[in-house]
């Protein structure tokens, strides 16, 4: 499944938020979007999963324009984990994951045995099957996020759009969730705020700045000291890690860097 965005622009109350964005995600690719806060990552993703409607430009999923796709049809092809995942009512974990089956169901059709198996498998994949009867409200942040991942898995889509899916999670759960997603073999477009995570998992990266695509390429091409300085205005040391063979970024904050320079002068 591939995604094709052409000249997408979006503004809110005459405020341009996305400016002439074009991008491509090929079938099976894991594509990351990085950029500083407020650069328009979330807004772009919302346009792509149709929570917002772009002012101009077109979006194609498998060469089919969004205008010709029904909401339900899109939901069978495209799974989403957004940012706002509050749920003010008490649902069991099972019920939440069962919601993922919705786009495959007719009106008033109940869950079949097959649906139950899909739900069970999804829960096993994120290692939450022992918690199936638990109340979602009482889960920890990491558990909640895994349940939402299970919901998207039970939706059985070939394409996933994720908006910082590991936000607020500890490093163990961050790696776990991305490992599960990577293991699916699905086509993925994800906003990622941790540059090292982006380096570890992405095949390609789009960099956004001020509502436009600044640059795109492989992690090696994108995650360079110069580019990170230009976009995030921080100093970094970038090298290839001997074990992962992936780009590894070490942040060099002012406070430590200044001390280092002082030491050198003293020597």
């Amino acid at each position, binding site marked *: 499944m591939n995604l094709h965005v052409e000249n997408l622009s979006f503004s809110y109350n005459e405020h341009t938020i996305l400016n002439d964005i074009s991008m491509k995600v090929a079938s099976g690719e894991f594509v990351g979007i990085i950029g500083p806060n407020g650069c328009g990552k979330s807004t772009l993703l919302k346009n792509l999963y149709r929570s917002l409607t772009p002012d101009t430009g077109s979006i194609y999923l498998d060469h089919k324009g969004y205008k010709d796709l029904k*909401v339900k049809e*899109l939901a*069978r092809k495209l*799974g989403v984990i957004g940012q706002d*995942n509050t749920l003010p009512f*008490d649902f069991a974990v099972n*019920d939440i994951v069962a919601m993922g089956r919705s786009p495959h169901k007719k009106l008033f059709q109940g869950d079949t045995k097959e649906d139950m198996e899909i739900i069970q498998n999804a829960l096993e994949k994120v290692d939450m099957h022992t918690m199936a009867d*638990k109340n979602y409200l009482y889960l920890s942040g990491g558990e909640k996020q895994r349940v939402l991942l299970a919901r998207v898995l039970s939706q059985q889509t070939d394409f996933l759009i994720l908006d910082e899916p590991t936000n607020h999670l500890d490093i163990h759960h961050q790696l776990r969730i991305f490992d599960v997603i990577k293991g699916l073999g699905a086509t993925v477009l994800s906003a990622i705020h941790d540059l090292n995570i982006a380096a570890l998992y992405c095949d390609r990266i789009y960099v956004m700045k001020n509502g436009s695509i600044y640059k795109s390429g492989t992690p090696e091409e994108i995650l360079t000291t110069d580019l990170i300085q230009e976009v995030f205005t921080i100093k970094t040391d970038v090298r290839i890690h001997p074990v992962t063979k992936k780009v590894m970024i070490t942040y060099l904050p002012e406070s430590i860097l200044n001390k280092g320079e002082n030491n050198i002068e003293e020597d």
Partner: protein
Amino acid sequence: MDTHITKQPKGLKETKPILIIFFLFLFTIATVILAIGMGPVSVPAATTSKILLSKLPYLSNLVESGWTQLDENIIWGLRLPRVLLGLIVGASLSVTGVTLQALVRNHLADPFILGVSSGASATATLGMLFGTFSFLGTYSLSISAFLGAAFVIIVVYALSRVNGKINMTQLLLSGVAIGLIMESITKLITLSAPNALGLHNATFWMAGSLAGAKWEYLTLPLLAMIICMTILLINYRALNALLAGDEAAGALGFNVNILQTMLVLIASLLAGVTIAVSGSIGFVGLMVPHITRLLVGSDHKKVLPVSAFLGGILVVWTDVAARLIIAPEELPIGVLTAIIGGPFFIWLLKRNARK
């Protein structure tokens, strides 16, 4: 391992919905038979059952008559329509509550939060005291209350649409504001009322009462109830998804705008028609859905039918209390539901604040 410790107490959450509904149905029948007998003139349950059976086709010959004509008049002419109306009104108010709570994603939404009851009261009072809508005939009260409800809903709905989507904050606030305006208009009408008897009737009706129940009052609310319930049950998955948020519902393949419009219309229709026959019986739409969720969880496939039954049963029993507490006089049932419902609302508020 120790999974039995980590599990939450489930209540009826594992029980099959069909079983729960079957028991609630039996309970409802028992409620009807018992409640009919209770009032200023009490009739034994056995007599009540016989009178009811004698009215059923094919069974009437099997029951030997042994009751007075007075009993039959009370049971068949007065109490049965009243109890049945109580069931329908309670069910409608509860389902309206469930609908509104799904719409605004908040436990605290109540059929009256949109100002619907105030709007209905205003036009109904106008009709009652000045005969404004008397050209509409026997249904004049129902129709005038319905018109008021519909008017408020359309205004509130128009005010709360921002950039083509319903803005929840706007919806709630404009509901409160329009409700207050309508209440002031009602006061204006009652203060300039030409006759005292009409004023007394209007005040009683506004406080919520099932006392005037007649057989012909049942048709419209029952019809509205069946239609709305069917539409809601067909869309139970969509309602569930809506609780997870507009965005999640959209991503799960539901057309959120159409869905919200539908919910607004259903809630308005149910509330309008109900208020027309019973006045404003507050807090039922708040309490019943909440108790239902505590019992069976939040899945609308269960919440909708269970809250309908529970709401009906609650209103019927509250109505029994309303006609017994100061017998032979009657309390407006709305006064009783408010006395129970007010503290319940405050408890919910505190509980929500703690979360």
